[in-house]
């Protein structure tokens, strides 16, 4: 024990962070510049910054067929408050052991981080349908990707107009 150098522990005491007053950043965030928060927070390496990156992270470059016929998204056309936008997604499927929806990913292309949620279903779900409430920073497309038990994947999207953005400022 004593011979070990505890380099990590000394780091905890060195909490002298320089306090930058990012005038530009603070001002734009307070105004309307919710679209491009400077730098972004470095909290999660796995969360991609663009929709393409996020879809690639989720699907690994798999081909996505047009899912407009089988995926339905219930979203408001105009969301007055971007902080709580109701979303209901459902996918047509018999939901049997042999043929069911395994996962539905929700991605929003205008948020600082595009990932919203992933719903994992099973044959015990009975129906591939889920609802939640999400934040939308501005008017943008909400994308739903459905993964099936046979390996196929489908994608569809819907636009939501947002009156007041909801990612805090």
């Amino acid at each position, binding site marked *: 024990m004593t011979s070990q150098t505890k380099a990590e522990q000394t780091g905890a005491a060195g909490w002298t962070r320089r*306090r*930058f*007053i*990012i005038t530009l*950043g*603070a001002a734009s*965030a307070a105004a309307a510049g919710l679209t491009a*928060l400077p730098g*972004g*927070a470095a*909290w*999660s390496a796995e*969360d991609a910054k663009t929709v393409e990156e996020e879809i690639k992270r989720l699907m690994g470059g798999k081909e996505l067929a047009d899912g407009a016929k089988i995926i339905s998204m219930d979203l408001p056309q105009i969301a007055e408050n971007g*902080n*709580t*936008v109701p979303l209901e997604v459902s996918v047509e499927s018999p*939901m049997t052991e042999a043929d069911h929806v395994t996962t539905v990913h929700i991605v*929003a292309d205008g*948020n*600082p*981080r595009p*990932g*919203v*949620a*992933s*719903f*994992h*279903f*099973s*044959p*015990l*779900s*009975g*129906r591939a*349908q*889920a*609802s*939640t*409430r*999400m*934040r*939308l920073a501005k008017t943008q497309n909400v994308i739903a990707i459905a993964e099936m038990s046979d390996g196929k994947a489908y994608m569809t999207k819907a636009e939501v107009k947002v009156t007041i953005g*909801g*990612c*805090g*400022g």
Partner: protein
Amino acid sequence: MAKPKPRIRAPKKASKGEVIEIKTLISHPMESGQRKDRKTGEIIPRKIINAFTCTYNGQEVFKADFHPAISANPYMSFFVKVKESGEFEFTWVDDDGTTYSKKSKLTVN
């Protein structure tokens, strides 16, 4: 912060093979990690519920991964096809590793 309080709305009775809807809500600020403290200008660290799981008689039925784009007090509703009586267990996982759970019994006849 007040301790997150989970709430469940699920039927107590169902008939065999019925597909029932379950609604869940947990009080939680879902701090996105994008907001800044108005006084200091520092980014408020992210703290969200990042996962939700529902099991029935120990078997996983539904699971969800949440990102910061999920609203505060995350609401989640989904469906379950029930074959026999049993107990649901709902679990939410916080960014700091804490889990919150709640149970609900169901009689199938």
